[in-house]
C-alpha cells in the first residue's frame, strides 16, 4: 500500500518535472548563451563547404553561417561546423543538433511542410545535371538509356533522376552512396557511366577527378534546385535573423557596398538606402540583433558578389559564371527586399 503510494507520488512529481515548458524562439537565446552558432554543412564539397588542408571550413554555405555569426556576435568566427551526410542533415536540424542547416539543400514544399523545417531564402539557384566520361561520346542526357547512374542518397536528385528517366521511358541502374566523395571515387573507377547531381556540384565534383578534363557536363538541366539555408519551424525570431543575414549580403551588392569600401561608405555615403543598411540611420528592425548587423556582415564576410566569386566564381577553381545567380538588375534572379 505504502509502496504504491510512494510510486505514484514519484511518478506524479516526475511528470511535473518533465512538464516544464520550453518556449518557442529558444534558438536565438540558446545561441547567445552558448556563444557560437552550430552550423550543419556538407562534409566536403569544394566551393560550398569543405575544410582546407588546415581544417578551416570554406565555401558559400560556410559564409552564410559566418554571416549569421557576424550578425549575432559581431564576430564571423563564432561558428562551429557539423559535417553532415545528406542522410543525416534533416534529422540533425529537427533534433536540435544544429542551429542552421546550410548544406546545399533544395527548397521543396514537402520539406517546408512535413519535415518541421523552414527554408529562409535562396543562396544559389541550381538545377540538376549529368556528368559523363568524355570517351563515352554521349552528347545528350536523352541518350543515357541503360546507363548506370551514381547518385547521393536521400537527395531530391535521387527523385528527379527516377522521374526524368521514367518520363522519357529510359532504363537506368542507380548506385547510391552516402557521401559526395564516394560518388566521385566510384564514378572515377567506372562503377557508373553517369554522375548526377546539382550542376554546381558537378563542377565541384569534377575538380575532384584525377583528370577533370576527362569528363563533361551534359547540357540538359532537368530540375529546379533552389538551394538555401534552413532552420527549425516555429522559431520566427531565429528564422528572421538567418533570412535577413542573407538579404543583407544581397542588398549590399545591389547598393555597391563591399567589404573594402564599407567603412568609407558608412562615413560618407549620402544614399539613404546605404545609410539604413549600414545602420547609420537607425531603423528599428526588431530582429533582436544589433542595429548595424548588416555592416558587421559586410565588413567581416562581404557582400553576395564577393562571397560568390571567392568561393565558386572567378576567384575560385570552379569558375562558375553568375548566370541565374546574378542580381535581378543584371538579368539574374537574386533579389532581396529592402532595408526600411
Amino acid at each position, binding site marked *: 500500500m505504502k509502496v504504491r503510494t510512494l510510486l505514484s507520488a514519484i511518478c506524479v512529481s516526475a511528470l511535473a518535472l518533465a512538464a516544464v515548458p520550453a518556449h518557442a524562439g529558444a534558438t536565438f537565446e540558446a545561441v547567445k548563451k552558448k556563444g557560437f552558432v*552550430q552550423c550543419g554543412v556538407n562534409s*566536403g564539397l569544394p566551393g560550398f563547404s569543405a575544410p582546407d588542408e588546415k581544417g578551416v571550413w570554406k565555401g558559400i554555405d560556410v559564409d552564410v553561417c559566418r554571416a549569421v555569426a557576424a550578425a549575432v556576435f559581431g564576430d564571423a568566427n563564432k561558428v562551429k561546423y557539423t559535417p553532415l551526410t545528406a542522410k543525416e542533415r534533416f534529422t*540533425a536540424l529537427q533534433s536540435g543538433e544544429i542551429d542552421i542547416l546550410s548544406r546545399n539543400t533544395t527548397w521543396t514544399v514537402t520539406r517546408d511542410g512535413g519535415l518541421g523545417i523552414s527554408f529562409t531564402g535562396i543562396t544559389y539557384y541550381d538545377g540538376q545535371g549529368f556528368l559523363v566520361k568524355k570517351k563515352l561520346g554521349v552528347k545528350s542526357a536523352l541518350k543515357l538509356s541503360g546507363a548506370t547512374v551514381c547518385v547521393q542518397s536521400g537527395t531530391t536528385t535521387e527523385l528527379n533522376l527516377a522521374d526524368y528517366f521514367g518520363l522519357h521511358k529510359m532504363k537506368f541502374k542507380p548506385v547510391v552512396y552516402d557521401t559526395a566523395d564516394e560518388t566521385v571515387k566510384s564514378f572515377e573507377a567506372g562503377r557508373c557511366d553517369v554522375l548526377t547531381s546539382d550542376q554546381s556540384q558537378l563542377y565541384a565534383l569534377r575538380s575532384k577527378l584525377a583528370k577533370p578534363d576527362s569528363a563533361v557536363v551534359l547540357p540538359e538541366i532537368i530540375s529546379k534546385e533552389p538551394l538555401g539555408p534552413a532552420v527549425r519551424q516555429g522559431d520566427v525570431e531565429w528564422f528572421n535573423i538567418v533570412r535577413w543575414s542573407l538579404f543583407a549580403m544581397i542588398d549590399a551588392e545591389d547598393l555597391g557596398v563591399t567589404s573594402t569600401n564599407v567603412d568609407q561608405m558608412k562615413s560618407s555615403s549620402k544614399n539613404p538606402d546605404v545609410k539604413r543598411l549600414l545602420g547609420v540611420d537607425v531603423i528599428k528592425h526588431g530582429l533582436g540583433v544589433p542595429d548595424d548587423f548588416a555592416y558587421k556582415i559586410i565588413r567581416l564576410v562581404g557582400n553576395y558578389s564577393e562571397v560568390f566569386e571567392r568561393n565558386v566564381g572567378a576567384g575560385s577553381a570552379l569558375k562558375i559564371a553568375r548566370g541565374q545567380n546574378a542580381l535581378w538588375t543584371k538579368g539574374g534572379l537574386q533579389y532581396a527586399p529592402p532595408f526600411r
Partner: protein
Amino acid sequence: MAAVPRQPDLPPPAAATGALGWVRRNLFDSPLNGALTLLAVYLLYLVVPPFVEWAILKADWSGTTAKDCSRAGACWVFIGVRLNQFFYGFYPVAEQWRVNTCLALLVAFVVPLFIKRFALKQWLGAVLLVVYPVVAFHLLVGGHFGLAHVETSKWGGLSLTLVIAIVGMVAALPLGILLALGRRATNMPVLKALCVAFIELWRGVPLITVLFMSSVMLPFFLPEGMNFDKLLRALIGVALFEAAYMAEVVRGGLQGIPKGQFEAAAALGLGFWRSTILVILPQALKLVIPGIVNTFIALFKDTSLVLIIGLFDLLGSIQAANSDTNWLGFSTEGYVFAACVYWVFCFGMSRYSQWLERKLHTGHRR
C-alpha cells in the same frame, strides 16, 4: 672361432632426422598431407611474392608529391606525407605536444603495472583511473592554465581512435560489472528485469544505429537548447553498447564461482558490497580475463565505425586522404597502412590475454 666384433650402433636413417626428417614427419607423412602441403605452398606462392614485390621491392619510399611515385609498387610517400594527419587529425601542430604528453603519461602509468615486483600497484592503478583521466582531459581540451582551447571537432586520426577506445574500456568495465550483478540479483526481480532488458536491447541492435541515434537523434529527447559535445555523445553510445557485452562476459565469470564462496563470505559477516568486492569479483574477473580482453579488442575495432557519423578517426582520416585530388589512386596503401596499425594493437592485446590465461591457469579449475 673369432668373436665377431661388436659393430657400433647405426645412426637412424637420414630420412628420419634433421630437417629432412622433420619435413617428412610434418609435411609428407601421408599422400593426403603431401597434397595439402603442395597446395599450401602454391597458395603461398600466389600471395606472398607479388605482395612483397608490391609492398617492398618495387615501392616508392621517399618524396613529397604523387609524382615521386613512379615505380610499379606501393607509394608509401602518400602515407609519409599524411602521417601527421593520420596520427593527430586536425589537432593544431603547435599543440600536438599535449597529445604526446598524454600518451607518454599513459605509458608511464601503465608499464609499471605489468612489472611483477612493483610494490605500489594499487596506488598507481587508482591514480591511473582517477587522476589520469582528469589530467588527460584538461591537457587535450585545454582552455585552462594558459593552454589554448582545442575543439573536439579538430581531434582525429589514431589519437582519436585511442581516446574512444580507452574511454570506452574504462567506462564499459564497471558499468558491465554493475549490469551483471543486477542481472544476477534474484532477490530483486524488478531490478533484474530492467538489467536484462537493457542488456538485450543493446546487444540486439547494430552499433551504427546506436551511433546514429547518439549523434543526430539524441537532442530530440532533451529539452530545447540543451546539447553537448558530439564526441562525448559518441563516447556514451560506444560505452553503453560495449557495457552490455561486458555484462554478459562478467556474468559468465559470476556463474563460475561456487555458492560456497558467497556463503563463506556471508558467514564472515561481510555485507553484500564487501563480499562482492573483496571475495567474489576478484575470482570471477580472473576467470573471464580472456573474455574481457576479447571485448576490448572488439571495442577497439568498433571505434572505426565512428567514421560513419562523421568523426575522423584513423580510418576516417585515411578515407578523407584517399579523396585528396593530389593523391588519387592510392587507397590500397591507405587501407594496408590502417590494417597494419589496427592489427598491431589487436594482436598485441590478444597475445597478452593468452599469456595471462596461461599464467592464471594454475588457479582452481574443476
